């Protein structure tokens, strides 16, 4: 049974993790990052990850996966709108755990299978064929870029972290109902491009999938993920996507801290605070990326886009650090409820706080170290020779600040 508490974080009520009990590890982790930066600066001076992994044309859509995705979606929507108390709770749980968090490990292990699974792409294909307009009626405006997806992700984190009652069936019905309508209408109007640029979950999955060490272009092909990471398709609004994902995580950690809970915040106040976090994270990244000498104005403006993929490992690291027990344990509860079973989830992870704490630190530091490696490699490619080291300094300061802050939050909350 999920009770929507007044201050429940993450949309779902219930128990949360202990604070990380070992400051030593946290400080050690932050130092590890700093040292990596220093060592890497001299370790290699020629780009190593610039050459893309070529596996030929991506495979056609796997329809059986679309059937699976559609069945799951129909079940969840059915439970949410027509089900009993338990089924509704299961649907709400599924939305916050498997859809929002489960998407990340899925993309890491299996690449962008979301494209195959997506029932919305399936509906678009069927309707497009029936209407004789498989590519839609309108051209997707290029200036829109990823902005609709960024707005969708912001709408999700707003519901999860700022809305008055995120755990209620009504809130989730509104959100998922609107999402379904917008996604189907957008898909029919603009064709498949809509999903590549405007569907928040599809885009999130596509971005994370570039970090998958196992799959390239939806085909099994183990490789060094740092070679596929730079191939995240760049477009307007990509920085906004990463800023929403990172800024909301930071806001969430702050929000759970005791100092924050002490002040009474209205929904509006929380919303403003969330936006400020997102803007600060985004602006700090853009400023740090641009802070180098010896480039023309046009080159300088292109730098944040050149480096934005390097933030993806950080996002992934925080998602795991932040939601590990949540996904595993609340995720089990969601499945139990969705199948209307009477069972108790296993709390194997929560019963081992030391393991959970260690994993959290490893995820955060690991994500940052991958980011540093990716950023260094890209800097060798894009920065002028004379500014290769100094041009990375601002980014180093920013990343170390992010790490300290991230670990501090994990430590204190």
């Amino acid at each position, binding site marked *: 049974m999920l009770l929507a508490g007044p201050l429940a974080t993450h949309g779902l009520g*219930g128990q949360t993790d202990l604070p990380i009990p070992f400051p030593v590890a946290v400080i*050690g982790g932050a130092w590890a990052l700093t040292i990596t930066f220093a060592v890497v600066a001299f370790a290699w001076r020629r780009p190593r990850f610039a050459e893309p992994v070529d596996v030929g044309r991506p495979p056609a859509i796997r329809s059986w996966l679309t059937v699976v995705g559609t069945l799951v979606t129909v079940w969840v929507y059915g439970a949410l709108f027509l089900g009993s108390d338990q089924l509704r709770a299961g649907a709400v749980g599924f939305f916050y755990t498997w859809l929002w968090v489960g998407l990340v490990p899925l993309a890491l292990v299996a690449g962008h299978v979301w494209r195959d699974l997506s029932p919305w792409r399936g509906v678009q294909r069927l309707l497009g064929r029936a209407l004789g307009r498989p590519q839609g009626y309108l051209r997707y405006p290029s200036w829109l870029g990823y902005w609709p997806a960024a707005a969708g992700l912001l709408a999700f984190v707003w519901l999860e972290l700022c809305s008055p009652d995120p755990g209620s069936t009504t809130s989730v019905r509104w959100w998922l109902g609107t999402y379904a309508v917008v996604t189907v209408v957008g898909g029919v109007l603009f064709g498949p491009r809509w999903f590549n640029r405007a569907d928040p979950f599809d885009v999130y999955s596509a971005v994370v999938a570039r970090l998958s060490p196992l799959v390239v272009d939806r085909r099994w092909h183990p490789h060094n993920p740092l070679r596929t990471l730079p191939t995240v398709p760049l477009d307007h609004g990509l920085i906004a996507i990463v800023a929403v994902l990172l800024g909301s995580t930071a806001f969430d950690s702050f929000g759970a801290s005791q100092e924050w809970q002490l002040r009474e915040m209205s929904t509006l106040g929380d919303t403003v605070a969330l936006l400020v976090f997102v803007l600060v994270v985004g602006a700090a990244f853009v400023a740090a990326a641009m802070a180098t000498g010896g480039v023309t104005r046009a080159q300088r403006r292109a730098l944040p886009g050149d480096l934005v993929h390097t933030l993806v490992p950080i996002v992934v690291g925080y998602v795991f650090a932040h939601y590990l027990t949540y996904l595993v344990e609340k995720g089990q509860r969601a499945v139990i409820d969705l199948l209307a079973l009477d069972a108790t989830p296993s709390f194997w992870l*929560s019963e081992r706080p030391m393991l959970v704490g260690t994993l959290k630190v*490893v995820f955060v530091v690991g994500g940052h*170290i991958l980011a540093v490696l990716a950023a260094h490699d890209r800097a060798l490619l894009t920065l002028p020779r004379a500014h290769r080291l100094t041009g990375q300094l601002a980014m180093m300061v920013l990343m170390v600040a992010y790490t300290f802050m991230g670990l501090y939050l994990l430590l204190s909350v």
Partner: protein
Amino acid sequence: MRLRSVITAVAAAVLLAGCGGSTDRGDEGSEAAEPVVLDVTIADGEVTPTNDRVEVSVGQEVVARVTSDAADELHVHGEPEATWAVEPGMEGEEFRYTPQIPGQIAIETHGLHATVATLVVTP
């Protein structure tokens, strides 16, 4: 090759740091410890305490003694969840909860929208 050694060195540093920290463990064997008492008062539309932090061990009972002049509901956001119905005129009414799993458990008033206390449950 140099890259690999860099990564190995960093991984080792992280692991060492992790191990260094894991040696300081909490005092164990407090299984059958005395119950922890938490006094909660709801009066004139205010609840005391708010945002208290209470350290307990798994299996150690928490007794909330509730005094109230209004109807409300206290939610214990743990595994399992619990809901305590508060009625006007309660004087030191006792509600009991025994945490089963390590973590943080918020006790919240549903009516007044406030966190009364967070149980910090250690193994």
